């Protein structure tokens, strides 16, 4: 099964989780998701997700001047974002548990 299909539904949670650790700019978030093992994540999807979360009021942005190259826009979680992450994480946990149980019971019956 293609993980990129799975990712679509949970990319918000992944992005929120990465940003809870520390603020980051767009490409930084892409890199950290990849480093965490989500190698199939699409760059444009991450940027789109950041935009959606920002439009939803879950993120704030601020600009950090840099000596080399252009100034960089950092994304940060605000309270709305933290609440959203908490709720989404709970939903995900229940969903994952359910699915794990389902797969496990199926495996036992087959055995």
């Amino acid at each position, binding site marked *: 099964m293609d993980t990129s299909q799975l990712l679509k539904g949970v990319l918000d949670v992944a992005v929120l989780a990465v940003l809870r650790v520390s603020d980051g700019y767009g490409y930084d978030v892409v890199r950290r998701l990849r480093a965490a093992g989500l190698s199939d994540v699409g*760059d*444009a999807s991450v940027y789109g997700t950041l935009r*959606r979360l920002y439009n939803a009021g879950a993120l704030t942005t601020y600009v950090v001047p840099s000596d080399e190259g252009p100034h960089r826009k950092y994304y940060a979680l605000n309270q709305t974002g933290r609440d959203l992450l908490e709720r989404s994480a709970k939903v995900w946990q229940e969903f994952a548990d359910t699915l794990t149980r389902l797969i496990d019971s199926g495996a036992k019956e087959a055995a």
Partner: protein
Amino acid sequence: VNTTLSPAATYVDAVHAALADLPADDLADIIEDVRDHVEQVLAELGEDATTGALEERLGKPADYAAELRSAAGYPPALSNAAAPGRPTRSVRWLATWSVRVALVLTTVALLDLFFTGFADSTVALAILGWFVAAFFLVLWWVAGRRGNGENRELPDMRWLRSQLPRLRQHPFGAAVVETVPALRPAWWMLRAWVAIELIGIFFGTGLFPLPRFPGAPVLLVAAIIVSVWLGRRAASHRQSSVESALVLVGNVAAVLTLLWMSTAPPLSQSSDQFLPDEESAPFIYQGAIRSDGTPITNLYPYGRDGRLLVDVRLYDQDGRPFDVLAYDGCKVHEMTGEPKLPALNEFPRPTSSHREFLEPDCIDRGIVPPFGSTLPGTSSDLTPTPSANVVPQPIPEGARR
């Protein structure tokens, strides 16, 4: 596809075009992110940073745009969304060309300033050109706001941006690129001052160091705050492309005004000297005017015996020196070049002929009474000596308004 653009600019432009129907403010933010993204990916690619390599890594611009669009939760693109409507397209054309015309007018004005040193009309035309350009830019901006967005960036600006990396590679260019940002705050202050001066010019008040209208210092502080705010916004790349185009237009207008103020004689003079120009214009109208509206520039008193009286000083009913203010004589001494201003209520005054547009010199014609030294019909033949050179006299403070 423009081959002179860098791979990054080409890619970003294509993504921009594919997302053109998104709300303008969102689009500006998104494109800012995409530009940053593409530049970082290109930096990673290093040597083989070609458009092909970029597309291999990120996908085709259209696919990238579609993926971003769906992840961001925007509705899918309509097939014709990228094509701007006809009104927007013509406004865009007008904006582009008005900026180009204004640039040409500016060049003409600068050449005129350089060669003749007196370029009021051409500079005024150039400033007018920039106002027209600003008008069309605002129109374009407003047109783009009502949905049906498009790549709202002047083609010329895009070209300029694509030239920036090339400039950075040049050692001299790199030094300039590094030094210029340090000078920005000084420029922000200066342009705020110029904006206030423009209001002063408009109302024809005195100009230095601040225009003489009520509240000018407060307005200057406000203008500085706005100017610095705009500058910091631009420095952190938070302006939409039209906003930055407008600021650019304002900057060009400010530079032109500064040039004009520093080179054109009427504006560089302090208003303490009475020149027939915009600065002293309100004084002329406050002075004596004939009922047909002609300013009175001179008075020739004759005595009962019909002889011209000279060095007469006139006062009004309140004992204030009566001056007509529209002084027509030479402002500087012919030989020494020193300022020459008679007491303002002293009549008759010497007159002069100007050849201002060809040569700035003033030919002193001395006192030229309309009826000669004696009134016709009187018998006296005593002639006063019309003084060709009126001795410059210090003007007592009270003699001035």
